[in-house]
C-alpha cells in the first residue's frame, strides 16, 4: 500500500478509486497467492481457532461436547505427567542444543578456514543424518544402544567401562540416549546454516583484522560472532520449535509412555497420548495451546534478545 502513496499523492476520493483499480489491475497476483491462503485458512487457521474452543470443552469425539470452562487448564496445572513431560522436553532441548549450536559454530568456523580441504566432502558427511527419516535413524540407534549386543556397549566394555543399561533401571539413561541421537541428527544442519553465514562475511574484514594483529580468538569473538547474530537467531528460533515439539525420535526409542518412569516422555508424545490414544480432545487442545503459547513466547524472546541488531550485514 505504500507503493500507492508514493505513486504521487492523489486526493482521497481518487485514491479510494485507485485502490480498487490497483486491485483489479493485479487480480492475477491474488489468484497466484490464493492456494496458500485458502489451504492455510482450512488446515491451519481454522484448526487453531477451533482448538481454542475445544480447550474449554470435554469431548471424546463421539458424545456431544460439553462446555466445562477452564477445567481443562486447571487440570493441566495439576497434571504430574504434564509437568514431567514439560521438564523432560525442556531438559532434552536445552542440554542437546548446547553442543549442537556450539559445536556447529566451531565446526563451521573450522571448515571455513583455509586450513581445511575437501570442504564438500565434510559438508555432505555432516548433513547425511538430517536427510534420513527420524524413524529410520531412531531404529538404527536403537540397535546401537542394544543393552547386551549393542555396538556402543561393546565399545564401552572394550575400553574397560561398564556396559550401559540404556532403557532399564529408573530410566536415568533414557534422556542421554535421546539427547545423543538428537545431537547426532541436528549438528550438521546447523553447521551448514552457519557455514553459509560465514561465507557471506566480507573477507576484507579478516584482512583488516590481520593487519591490526588480531588473534584467531579475537577474530572469532569480535568479528565472526557479532556478524552471525541474525543467523544464530534463525537457528535458535527453529531449534526452539523443533525441541519443544520433539516426537519421532523418543517415540521410536522408548514408545509412547516414554519408558521407565516416563523418563523419555516429551510434551508432543503426551499430547499424542491424551489426544489420540484416549481421545481427550478438549484436554489435548488445552495442552496444545499452552505449549504453543510457550513456544511463541520463547521465539519472541529470542528475537527481542538476539534480533535488536546493530548489524545489518
Amino acid at each position, binding site marked *: 500500500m505504500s507503493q500507492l502513496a508514493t505513486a504521487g499523492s492523489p486526493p482521497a476520493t481518487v485514491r479510494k478509486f485507485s485502490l480498487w483499480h490497483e486491485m483489479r489491475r493485479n487480480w492475477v497476483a491474488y489468484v497466484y497467492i490464493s492456494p496458500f491462503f485458502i489451504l492455510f485458512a482450512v488446515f491451519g487457521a481454522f484448526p487453531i481457532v477451533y482448538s481454542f474452543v475445544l480447550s474449554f470443552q470435554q469431548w471424546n469425539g463421539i458424545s456431544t461436547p460439553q462446555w466445562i470452562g477452564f477445567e481443562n487448564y486447571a487440570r493441566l496445572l495439576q497434571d504430574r505427567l504434564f509437568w514431567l513431560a514439560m521438564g523432560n522436553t525442556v531438559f532434552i532441548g536445552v542440554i542437546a542444543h548446547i553442543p549442537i549450536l556450539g559445536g556447529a559454530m566451531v565446526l563451521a568456523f573450522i571448515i571455513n578456514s583455509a586450513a581445511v580441504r575437501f570442504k564438500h566432502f565434510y559438508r*555432505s558427511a555432516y548433513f547425511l543424518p538430517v536427510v534420513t527419516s527420524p*524413524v529410520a535413524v531412531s531404529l538404527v540407534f536403537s540397535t546401537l544402544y542394544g543393552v547386551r549386543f549393542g555396538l556402543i556397549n561393546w565399545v564401552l566394555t572394550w575400553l574397560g567401562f561398564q556396559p550401559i543399561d540404556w532403557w532399564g533401571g529408573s530410566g536415568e539413561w533414557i534422556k542421554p540416549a535421546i539427547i545423543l541421537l538428537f545431537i547426532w541428527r541436528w549438528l550438521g544442519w546447523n553447521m551448514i546454516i552457519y557455514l553459509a553465514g560465514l561465507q557471506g562475511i566480507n573477507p576484507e574484514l579478516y584482512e583488516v583484522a590481520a593487519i591490526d594483529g588480531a588473534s584467531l580468538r579475537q577474530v572469532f569473538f569480535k568479528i565472526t560472532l557479532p556478524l552471525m547474530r541474525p*543467523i544464530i537467531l534463525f537457528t535458535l528460533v527453529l531449534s526452539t520449535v523443533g525441541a519443544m515439539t520433539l516426537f519421532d525420535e523418543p517415540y521410536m526409542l522408548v514408545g509412547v509412555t516414554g519408558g521407565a518412569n516416563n523418563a523419555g516422555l516429551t510434551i508432543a508424545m503426551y499430547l499424542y497420548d491424551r489426544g489420540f490414544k484416549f481421545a481427550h480432545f478438549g484436554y489435548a487442545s488445552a495442552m496444545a495451546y499452552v505449549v504453543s503459547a510457550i513456544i511463541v513466547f520463547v521465539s519472541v524472546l529470542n528475537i527481542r534478545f538476539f534480533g535488536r541488531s546493530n548489524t545489518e550485514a
Partner: protein
Amino acid sequence: MASTESSVRPQTHTAHSTTVRRTRWQPLVRSLLFNALLLIGAFLSAFPFYWMFVLSTQSTQQIFSWPPQFTPGDNLVTNYQNIFAIIPFWRNFANSAFVGITHTVLALLFCSMGGYAFAMYRFPGRNWLFALLLATMMIPWMAGIVPWFILISKWLHWINRYEALIIPGAASAFGIFWMRQYIQESIPTELLDAARIDGCHEFSIFFRIIAPLLTPAYAALGIMIFIGSWNGFLGPLLVMQEKTMYTLPVALSLLRQDPRRGFDAGVLMLGTALATLPMLIVFLMATRRFMAGLTIGAVKG
C-alpha cells in the same frame, strides 16, 4: 579464501625470533588438528549408516555374536523374505513414493506461483499478506493438531486416503518465501514488461516464460519438499490406519516386532536400509544444489 588462514595467524609477536619459528609450524599443527577433528566427526556422522547396511545382511546369530562382526553377513535374502511376513513393504514404498511425488509437484506449483506474485506484483495488501505468511511459519504444528485430525477424519473422511498427506501442506509458507527470494534475485522485471508489451497474457507470462526459468529452483526446493514428505511420521501415523496404506516410516515402526518370530535386528535394519537408500541417493546426487537451496532462506532472510 586462501588468504583466510594466513590472515588470521597471529602476527603480534613476529619481532621475536623464537615466536617466528612458532608461527611457522603453528598453522601446520592447527591444520592437522582441524582435519583430525573433522574426520572424526564425519566418521561418527556416517558410521551408523554403514552399520545399518552391515546389520541388514546378518542373521540374528551373527548380530548377537561377541565381538560384533563389522563385515557384511550372508543372510540378506532371508532377511528380505522375512520383511514381507510383517509388512507389505513395496506397497508401503509405493505409498511413500506416490504421496511424495504428488505432494512435491503440487507444492512446487503453488509455491512458485505465490513466490512469483510476492516478488513481481505490487498489489494492495502485499506487505501485510507477506508478513502474515511469515508469521504462520512461527506457529508450531501442535497448536491445531487435534481439530486438524477431526477435520481430516470426521468431516473430510480422509482416513486411509492419500489426500490427507498431499493436500494440507501443499502450499508451504517456507516454500513461497524461498521462491520469492529466488525469483527476486534471478528474474529481471524487464522480462515481464517486454512480455506484456508483446501482448502476452498474464498467465502465459508465468507458465510459458517464468516457470521454465525456475528449473534450478524447482529442483532445489523439490528435493527439500520430497525429503520432508518421505520422512514425515506423525501425519501418516494419525491418518493411515491400515497396513496397506502405511507410508514407509509408519510401516518401519512395525518391523520392530515380528508377530511370529519376535525381534530381529537384521530384518529391521534391512527394511530401514531399503527405506533410507532412495533418500541417500537423491541427497548424494544433488548435495550442492540441495545445500545451496537450503541456505537461501537462512542467510538472505
